């Protein structure tokens, strides 16, 4: 069992994910430079947060053309876990492994703060260790996290139960639109979605930042533990 942490020029949460996978969740993980052209031997890929290529064009737009990306797509096709967090989510939408796009935050400011997430009734492998409807406290840190897609796509996502996490108030209720519970203004309060098959997850919040009690929260840890369990099951 081995996971790849894909490093793009400008990735900056690569070390954080590497640390959590190896030291906290017990998933052996290695860095893979974006210029490599093979992920042979890896059972999962994580696209970390950061600012690939400075996010100078659109977030994730340039990273999508990296030599490693066909291999990430191959893993996704083969049903292996592909997880994109923050900038990683943006890359996954740019390369169409996930639908929609991430627009600039509604208030046009970078936001680094805790949000509350509700675990939606999806069949995501990543949510296997959460209770449906459970409310998690996980931080966001982004400028462009305002999820958008067209009405048909939204219907598909909702009907296919592909919304994995939603921004909610601390009591678990939704507050779509401009409320403080949905700080970036995401459509339908969407914080994380998966592909049809459920092996590709993109999410804006950073579970790796709340996986150790010393950092003030552990709500993110079970996501990585679920990933480990899944990988063990396949091994």
């Amino acid at each position, binding site marked *: 069992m081995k996971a790849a942490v894909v490093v793009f020029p400008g990735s900056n949460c690569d*070390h954080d994910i590497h640390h959590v996978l190896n030291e906290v969740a017990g998933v052996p993980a290695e860095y893979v430079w974006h210029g490599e052209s093979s992920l042979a031997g890896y059972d999962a890929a994580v696209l970390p*947060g950061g600012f690939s290529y400075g996010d100078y064009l659109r977030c994730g737009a340039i990273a999508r053309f990296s030599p490693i990306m066909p291999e990430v797509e191959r893993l996704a096709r083969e049903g292996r876990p592909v997880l994109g967090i923050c900038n990683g989510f943006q890359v996954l939408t740019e390369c169409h492994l996930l639908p929609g796009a991430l627009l600039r935050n509604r208030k046009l400011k970078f*936001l680094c703060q805790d949000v509350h997430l509700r675990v939606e009734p999806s069949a995501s492998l990543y949510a296997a260790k959460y209770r449906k409807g459970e409310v998690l406290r996980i931080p966001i*840190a982004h*400028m462009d996290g305002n999820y958008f897609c067209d009405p048909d796509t939204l219907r598909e996502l909702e009907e296919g139960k592909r919304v994995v996490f939603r921004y909610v108030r601390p009591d678990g209720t939704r507050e779509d639109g401009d409320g403080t519970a949905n700080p970036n203004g995401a459509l339908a309060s969407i914080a994380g979605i998966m592909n049809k098959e459920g092996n590709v997850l993109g999410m804006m919040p950073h579970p*790796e*930042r709340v996986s150790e009690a010393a*950092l003030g929260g552990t709500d993110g840890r079970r996501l990585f533990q679920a990933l480990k369990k899944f990988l063990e099951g396949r091994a």
Partner: protein
Amino acid sequence: MTDALRPGTLPDARSFGLKEEEFDRIVARLGRTPNLTELGIFAVLWSEHCSYKSSRIHLKKLPTKGKRVLQGPGENAGVVDIGQGLCVVFKMESHNHPSFIEPFQGAATGVGGILRDVFTMGARPIACLDSLRFGAPDAPRMQYLVDGVVAGIGFYGNCFGVPTVGGETTFFEAYNENILVNAFTLGLARHEDLFFGRASGAGNPVYYVGSKTGKDGIHGATMASEEFSDATEEKRPTVQVGDPFTEKLLLEALLELMKTDAIEGIQDMGAAGLTSSSFEMAGRAGTGMRLDLDQVPLRETGMTPYEIMLSESQERMLLVARHGHDATIARIFHKWGLDASLIGEVTGDGRMVCTWKGKTVVDLPIAPLAQDAPLYDRPRRRPSYLRKVTVEADAKADSADLGGDLLDLLEHPNFASKRWVWRQYDHQVRTNTVIGPGLDAALLRVKGTRMGVAMTSDVNPLYCYLDPREGTRFAVAEAARNLACVGAQGIGVTDCLNFGNPEKPEVMWQFKEAVEGMASALKAFKIPVVSGNVSLYNDTEGRSIWPTPTVAMVGLVKDMRRVPERELPEGARVLLAGDGEVRLAGSQYLYHKGTLVGRLPKLDLKMERKLQKFLLKGYAKRALRFAHDVSEGGLAAALAEVALFAGMGFDGSVPGGDPVLQCFGEGGGRALVVGEEEALAALARALDLPLRPLGVLGGEAFRLSTGGAPLETTLDALQRRFEGGFKKAMRA
């Protein structure tokens, strides 16, 4: 610049900011007239910004030595040992004038510069602080400046991937036309991985790495050495655009290269670009350098040697390599998509020789430039305003509504929560942040150890205005106290001394007082200064800013299992530890009522040391759960902040006496603590430290009984005013 090689004249020298006697001195030293390029080199190296010609004789008084000091002032950044083979590398730098001209890019490139200072030494940056002084919120352009500066700091730090974990943000009219942006970075390294800015070893190749050189930023260093006027605004195109993405690549490329054996020495091209880096590196090593300016990667065509030498384009470094590593250097920089060009070699003759298009365009001895710059003992005079404001009797104030006064104070943007600011900063990336913005000091874990590193930046401009010496001592004491409140022992300081025009005797007096104040307090705490920055000429149209010696202090926590708790239980008792003279002079309370006069309270350094020992031992013995410094806003504000932290009301009392003085008077030597009372009492007795209960956390009401009418309000009102104040002032 039509002819960079024609002989420089006195008018040229003047237009570069040199004085007539300095020009004469240059001609005498060289025994000839320098050409225009050479004159430009002298001008920047002898500018206040680069040469410290007005400040050096005073800076010598600062303590810079200590058991832990691995590198004191004089390098790109200071280095302090934290044990287990690790060290912290840190420095603070100002970017005041650029930020006033173009707040977003000015602040952003300020962060970029200080990051380079730290990682050029081989340390990966792990945290930033930003200390910001703005003018009155309703002053012209101020909203725009605040917006731009905060967004710019966030832009650079967030993209680079370093958490901005703390800082200061205050608003005083004295900064209406000259805001202060002081940026601090701390990096972590292993001892054996440190690099220095030395060009050792004649014959070693000299490389230029990073971004290409453009015409941007020419004159940056001289601009930082001049008063502000409309004429300076004309030099606007000197503003640079930051490229944090390229800097992040530069960091990763360098850290990768540093693991090989290729580097002899390396330095950031900061102010005065290629000039200062080459002269300083050769100067420190006692060598010389030969540079071929045709090999410098250029972004624009038609650049003159003058422009190449003085450009302040960002994200560049000068690297002295060891022989035989050219292929490694080329491979690593190519991997990261950066330029690395061989532009010269180290020589043994103590000269800087630059060629361009086959001609020698610069031929200067290094010593007179790098080490032998002018040194001034400028005249000083006690400012006359002090006669008016230094009255012996403490200003009195009556209050009809203490609760209302507290709410007004908490709502003022100097006081209110700075969440609006730090929410725009990624303060968690790299997953080390144990305490981020919002408490007395920030605290980061050091992965792979039990240790933690804490940091804070402090200075109270009101205090420094009334008494620069005592005010600076208070800044040092507050910084050390803030660290102790999170369980950290101060181990080193970097400072940023922001003052007005040093050619004004009044400013020079303030400067000397502040430096001597800082020196005496640091000696008492046995904490050395390991790096710092002087920013003079913070004058606009003849008006000087208030003396603002920002103190950034770094502390060490040996065991991260002994740090403040994140939650306080209902019913927890809050105690006041320590004691000290309390006055209204220089207090936020009186300032907001429109009065700024009086004599500062006395700072009792013995009490400070006892209090800090109490806090540190309290955590170590697990007797202490939480501590909060009592400073600006006095006891009432500090208690309100504890209530806000706990999310509970409070019922208690302040010591008897004049109610306003007891609630809002300020002074040193005090902290609020929550913990195991018996153990704390025993510890206080052993240290002979006053410790008394003030009241209990809980409920919705916030109530303090005083010698007169009580202070009464509610937790809800405190929250609304404290959380809403900043946005209200910023109309954001």
